[in-house]
Each structure stands twice: as structure tokens, then as C-alpha cells.
């Protein structure tokens, strides 16, 4: 009988289909974006071409300028740079060969790098980029990093950022950060702060950091980093225009996102997420690309960029309608401080939407940590038929400042995770966040719990065994079982 009713309902419902279709939201339409963008930019640029083999005469001239630079009296060295500049690209292959030679001295290589920079052409910058990546002498890499900023070509920015990821020598990193800053990108400042901390206040790294901070018009590095990460439109570095060659580099990085090997993809999403906000319109366009890897990774990169990517907010909201993009767009919306993000995320949590999207939207709301989402999170925390969603919602309530009411509930999730198949660690992380916040206000009991909790962390660099990991988790749960009720009473 139930089947008859269903068939009748279907027959009657058919007349409503047209109306439903009319009121359906506009689909998110993907198209070919990447390929036309690359073709357009490539055709607008002259290829750098190959450098060719240097002639004997050029080799002698190039070596002569190096010798002169190293022996010239103070103040006279500039003549060598002027001569190098006058020769233009002719000397580029000479210095490229010398910089790559295993027989040349480090001093000659450092001089060659400076003279290459003086040539001041894109081809010369390309040679320095290659040496920055490959040269084994830190002093040569440091010289390349330093001079690339002086040359003023913004297309080197992605390569400087990539080097931030891999550079291990603390004498090179400050110059990467400094050159990036000269080119209007402050992604390296946090790295400079770390290195300056190792060297102390009198170090070269600290001096260069000071120069970067003051040149940007800030009083300290923290304010500069905050302005950079927040995408502050009033910051002095916010509106620098980018060249065609830079835009081509950005699209090439987007193309790298389609590689099979994650090595290149990881590099690309790292670099894209550290670009300045001028890259956001290009990345926003890429969100529509027909290639699913492009859409997914670009959403990731925008999310990691944080509020600098605010300009992509409207497209990410539309992307919530794209089956593939939706969960990644939801998590990105949690991070970019877009004013309409919360409304879109709340809608994405509605029953009937894809479970992956609902969960990602709740995670996005937890990152947003806006108390306005509390009523909806309260409802979702009761969804017993979707325990993972209920868990994330309860954790989200803690991130939204409802720790006092939900700490015990989240602790219970962690306690029963082995039986329920849920991830105890996400719940423990939420509780740890709440305790840290309480400790941040100087509450003595919270400070005590915080210390005891973090003392149970595994020793850095030594992965625990599975048994140790279970024991560590259990110890943390027991610690919180004993301590949270007291902390809750204190809080009241």
C-alpha cells in the first residue's frame, strides 16, 4: 500500500517539477579558465629564450669585471656594475656558467651574482633564481636573495616564497624576507623574526628585520605581520600593481596544481597561499576552472591565505553549489573573514545537503568562532543520527565561546570515542583551546590544568607507539575528568 501511495505522490508531484526547477538556485558553472589565461599571458610576453654559449671575448670581459670588482679601491666598484649593465644580456650566459661551475671560487660566484643583478634584465633575474635554488654555498644564495629584491622584478616573488619553505641556512632567510618586502610581499617577515631570535638583537638578521619593519611604516614586526595577514586595505603595501610576467607565474602555479605528484602541488599551494592580495582576483577566476584539482586546491590556497583572500568570498559562496568544490569552499569561508560567510555556512548545514558539505560548513563556523552561529550549532549538536556532525558542532560551540556549557559534553565524546568511532583528538583539541583561553586570563586553576595537559604531549621528534598514544590520550581524558568540574565551578 505504501508503494501505491508513493506512485500516486510521484504522479501528483510531477506537476510541481517545473516550479521547483524555476526556483532552483543558479548552478555554479565551470569552464576552461586556466588554459586561456596562460595562452593570453604567454602571447603577451616575449619568451626569454635560451642564453646560448658565451664567446671567449665575453668570458674575458665577464672575468675582468669580477677581478676589477674584487680589487677596485673603495667607491670604484660601481664602475664594474655600470659596465655590466651596459653590456646587457650578453654577460648573462657568462655569469650563469661561472655561477654553475664547480671550479669557481665562492668569492667569484658572489661577485658574479652581484654583477648579474646589475644587468637588471628578466633573463639576469632568472639566472639568480636558479642559483638561489641550486647553489650549495649559502653566501652565494644569500647574495642572490638580496639582489633579487633590488632588481625589482615581481615575477621572482613565487620563487622567493618557495625558497622560504626549503632554505635551511639562517644567513639566507633574512634576505629572502627582505627582498620579498621590497617587492611588496611580507610573507617572509615571520621567518625573519624567527631567525632574528636565534641571532639576538645585534645580529645582521635583526638589523635587516628592523629595516624592513620601519620601511613598511610599522613600529614592530608583530603589527606588520598582523596588517599583512589581515589584508588591511589601508596598509601601505596593499595596492602595488603586478606585472604581466607575475600574473603568468601565478597561472603557472595554478597549472602545477593539476600535477599527479603531490610534491609540486604542495609547493604550489604553499606559494599561492603566501601571495599578496593582488593574486586573489586571479585565484577567484580559477575557482571556476573545469579541472577539479584546480578548483579544490585554489579554494585551499585561498583559505590558507586568510583574510587577504576576502575578495574571493562571493565566489566561494557560489562554490558551495559545486559538488566538488563545496566542502573546500566551506572551510575556506571560515578563514577569510568574509562578511557574508556565516549566512552561507549556516545554510550549508541544513539537513538534506551533502553530509561532507554539512560537516565542512560546521568546521568553517568553528573557525569563524562567531557567537551568532551558536543557536544553529546547538541544534546540530543534537543530531544523533550524524554523530560526527554533532561532535563537530559541540566542538564548534566551544570555539564560539560556549566552553562553560559544553566542555563536559565534548569531554564525553572524547571518553567514548573508542566505542563510537569518533576522533577523540579533535575533541581534546577543542577542550585544550578552551583551557588555554581561560589560562590566558591568568586564572590559576586553568594555568595549572594547562601545564599538566601540555606536559602529557609526546616528546617532540619522537613519534609515540600506539600504546603510548592511547595511554597519553587516556591520561589527558582523566586529567580533564578530574579538573574540568572544578574549573567550571570556578568559572561560575
Amino acid at each position, binding site marked *: 500500500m505504501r508503494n501505491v501511495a508513493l*506512485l500516486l505522490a510521484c504522479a501528483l508531484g510531477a506537476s510541481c517539477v517545473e516550479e521547483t526547477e524555476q526556483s532552483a538556485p543558479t548552478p555554479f558553472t565551470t569552464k576552461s579558465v586556466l588554459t586561456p589565461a596562460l595562452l593570453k599571458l604567454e602571447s603577451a610576453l616575449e619568451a626569454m629564450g635560451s642564453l646560448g654559449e658565451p664567446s671567449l671575448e665575453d668570458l674575458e670581459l665577464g672575468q675582468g669585471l669580477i677581478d676589477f670588482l674584487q680589487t677596485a679601491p673603495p667607491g670604484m666598484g660601481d664602475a664594474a656594475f655600470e659596465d655590466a649593465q651596459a653590456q646587457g644580456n650578453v654577460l648573462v650566459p657568462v655569469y650563469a656558467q661561472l655561477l654553475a661551475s664547480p671550479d669557481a671560487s665562492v668569492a667569484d660566484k658572489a661577485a658574479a651574482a652581484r654583477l648579474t643583478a646589475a644587468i637588471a634584465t628578466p633573463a639576469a633575474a632568472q639566472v639568480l633564481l636558479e642559483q638561489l635554488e641550486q647553489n650549495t654555498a649559502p653566501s652565494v644564495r644569500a647574495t642572490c636573495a638580496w639582489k633579487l629584491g633590488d632588481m625589482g622584478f615581481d615575477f621572482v616573488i613565487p620563487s622567493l616564497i618557495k625558497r622560504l619553505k626549503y632554505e635551511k641556512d639562517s644567513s639566507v632567510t633574512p634576505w629572502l624576507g627582505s627582498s620579498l618586502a621590497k617587492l611588496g610581499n611580507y610573507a617572509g617577515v615571520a621567518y625573519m623574526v624567527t631567525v632574528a631570535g636565534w641571532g639576538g638583537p645585534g645580529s645582521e638578521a635583526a638589523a635587516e628585520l628592523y629595516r624592513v619593519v620601519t620601511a613598511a611604516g610599522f613600529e614592530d614586526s608583530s603589527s606588520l605581520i598582523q596588517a599583512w595577514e589581515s589584508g588591511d586595505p589601508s596598509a601601505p603595501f596593499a595596492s602595488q600593481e603586478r606585472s604581466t610576467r607575475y600574473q603568468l607565474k601565478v597561472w603557472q602555479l595554478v597549472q602545477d596544481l593539476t600535477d599527479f605528484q*603531490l610534491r609540486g602541488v*604542495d609547493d604550489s599551494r604553499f606559494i599561492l597561499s603566501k601571495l599578496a592580495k593582488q593574486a586573489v582576483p586571479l585565484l577567484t577566476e580559477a575557482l571556476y576552472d573545469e579541472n577539479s584539482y584546480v578548483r579544490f586546491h585554489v579554494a585551499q590556497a585561498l583559505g590558507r591565505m586568510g583574510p587577504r583572500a576576502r575578495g574571493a568570498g562571493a565566489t566561494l559562496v557560489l562554490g558551495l553549489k559545486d559538488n566538488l568544490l563545496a566542502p573546500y569552499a566551506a572551510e575556506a569561508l571560515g578563514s577569510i573573514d568574509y562578511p557574508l560567510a556565516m549566512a552561507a555556512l549556516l545554510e550549508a548545514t541544513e539537513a538534506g545537503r551533502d553530509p561532507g*558539505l554539512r560537516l565542512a560548513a560546521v568546521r568553517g563556523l568553528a573557525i569563524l568562532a562567531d557567537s551568532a552561529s551558536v543557536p544553529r550549532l546547538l541544534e546540530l549538536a543534537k543530531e544523533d543520527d550524524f554523530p560526527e556532525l554533532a561532535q563537530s558542532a559541540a566542538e564548534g560551540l566551544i570555539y564560539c565561546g560556549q566552553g562553560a556549557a559544553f566542555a563536559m559534553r565534548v569531554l564525553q565524546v572524547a571518553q567514548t570515542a573508542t566505542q563510537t568511532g569518533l576522533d577523540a583528538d579533535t575533541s581534546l583539541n577543542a577542550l585544550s583551546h578552551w583551557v588555554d583561553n581561560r589560562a590566558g586570563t591568568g586564572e590559576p586553576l586553568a594555568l595549572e590544568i594547562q601545564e599538566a595537559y601540555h606536559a602529557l604531549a*609526546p616528546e617532540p621528534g619522537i613519534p609515540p*607507539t600506539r600504546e603510548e598514544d592511547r595511554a597519553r590520550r587516556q591520561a589527558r581524558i582523566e586529567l580533564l575528568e578530574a579538573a574540568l568540574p572544578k574549573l567550571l565551578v570556578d568559572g561560575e
Partner: protein
Amino acid sequence: MQKVLGGIVVLFALWFLVVLLGPSGAAEPARAWKSSAECADCHSEIYQEWQESQHSISWTNPLVRERSNDFANTDCIDCHAPRPVFVTGIGERVMPRSIQRNEGVDCLTCHQLPDHADGTPGGMAGGVRNADVPCRPEERRELVRPNFCAGCHNQHKTVDQWEASHFATGKDKEDCLDCHMPWVNPEDDATRHRSHTFPGGDQTHMLIRAVSLTGAAHEGNWYVTVSNIGAGHSFPTDERSRTADVFWRPLTDDEGAPWNHMHRIRSPYRDEVGVPDTLLLSGEDRKLPVTTEPEGKGQAIPSTDSIEVVLFYRRTPVWEDLAHPAQNRGAVEVARVVLKP
């Protein structure tokens, strides 16, 4: 009114035909599966096997948690909690999923088929087609092809290594499943199935089967040869963290006597500039001089001395105590050879 009644009669007739004549299983729409735990209802033995596997702990493994900073490095999620392979595309790079990450590389990762065009669940991929069971398996031979594993495992070139090996090209071809999903109860038609414990580098018997260590005197000095005799890919195959190290020491009765590090077999992290990739290729024999310093440096050890040589495997490249490899956490002795004059 007549038309309405006529319509109802036609609909009733259709319903009757469907109920009476249709296959019992096919009458129910395919279910949507949210969690691999649901598979245990019917496939408890296989589910139990999977729970013992590294795949089941790809999200919770403390080693991975430590390396990924509790997955704050979200790049790691792609392979450690992937979307179903049939959805992303066989041989294509995997993508991360949002739900049930705690289940790691689970049943659904390999078996769930994409939804049909009308949005109804697509059922499962399996070894046989059966429309009468809840998961509606379709026979999909792609499941047993090496390319099926490539989305994750060829990130470390494992499938490429296999394709270049005699395991792929020789007359007695063996592929991923032959070693890593061996048959369970092969003689019993009722219970025969592929093991879902996925034995690999986490199991000592697999390591012992993969490599051998032999030694011989040559021109008055000792040499040892490490051979990849049993792995259809490099040993170790994974890059970066997995490592195999060879040590030697004078032969004594003292089991606690210190060892000398001889050679490291490992692919470096991508930021380790100047560190060579020394993975032992499938079928490769690597002859190593026994010397006082690592990597063939220092003085050669004369074959008039009695020595012992040992090969250890670890899932982390950092040794806390190189002189006493057995005391390092997780170190597994794979092979040992005693060389006497």
C-alpha cells in the same frame, strides 16, 4: 473523473507488476553508505582484517599525527583520508574527504562507486555482481589492478618501481595483490577471499622476505651485499621517513657491544639538499665494503677478523643511538650475517 480513475488503475497495475515480477533485491533502492563500520554487519571477518591494517590507522597512527602536526598540515589529508578512488578516478591523484576521516583508508575508499546520474547511490565495487544484497556489488576488475593503488602509492613512485621490475615484466608476474592482499583460505570456495590486513613494511616477515644480507671476503677485506630479492618495488619503497641501515661490529659474546654504522638505504625529504637517494631497487644487489667509517670511508676491515653485520629497518630516519640500533624505538632487525675467516 474517468481519466483520473483510469490513471489510478494503470498505476496500480504497474505497482502490481513490479512487486510480483521484479527481483526481490532490485526492488529496494541502493543504500547510501556513510561509514565503513556499516560494512561489518555482513563482512565481519574482512572488517576485522582491515582493522588490523595500516590502512585503518592512516588517520589515527601516532607516527602520522606527529609528522603532520595532528593534520594541521592539511596537505597530508589527501592520502590519509581520501575520497573513494572510483569517484576521483582510477590512477588519478586522490582528494581528501570531509567525513569519517577517522576511518582512514577505509572500505568506502576502495569499494564505493560514484552515485548514478540521477543522484541515487552507485553501490559498491567487488569481485562479483550481486543485486540481492544491500551493498549491490558490481564486478569491477579495476580493483585488482596495480593502477588502482597508484593514486596514493605512486606519490612515492611505488607503482612505477613495480612496472620497471621483473615482477611486472617477468614470466612469473606478481603484482600488488600477490604480496599485499594474499589469498585467505584459497582452497575453500565458501570463505576464500583476499586478505585485507595489507601486510607490508609494518610486518617483519614481509621485511625478511624482501631483502637478504650476505658477506664474503674480497682481496683480503670483508664485503657485504644487500639484495632486494623479494620486493616488487624499491626497498624501502616509501620516501623520506622509512629507512634501512646496515651496521657491523667485531664478533664478540657481548650482545651489548656497540655497532658501527655502515650504510643507509633511504630516499631523502625534499628539503634535504645533497642527501643521495639510496633506495635499493627491486632485484638490485648492492655490494658494500666493511669499513671503519660509514659509506665506505675509513679503513677496510680485513677478512682475517671475525665480524657480524646486521640490517635494521625503521619508519623514521632519526636514530637516537646509532651504536645500539636495537634499542631505538621501532627498529626491526631484518637480517644478520656472521663473517669468520
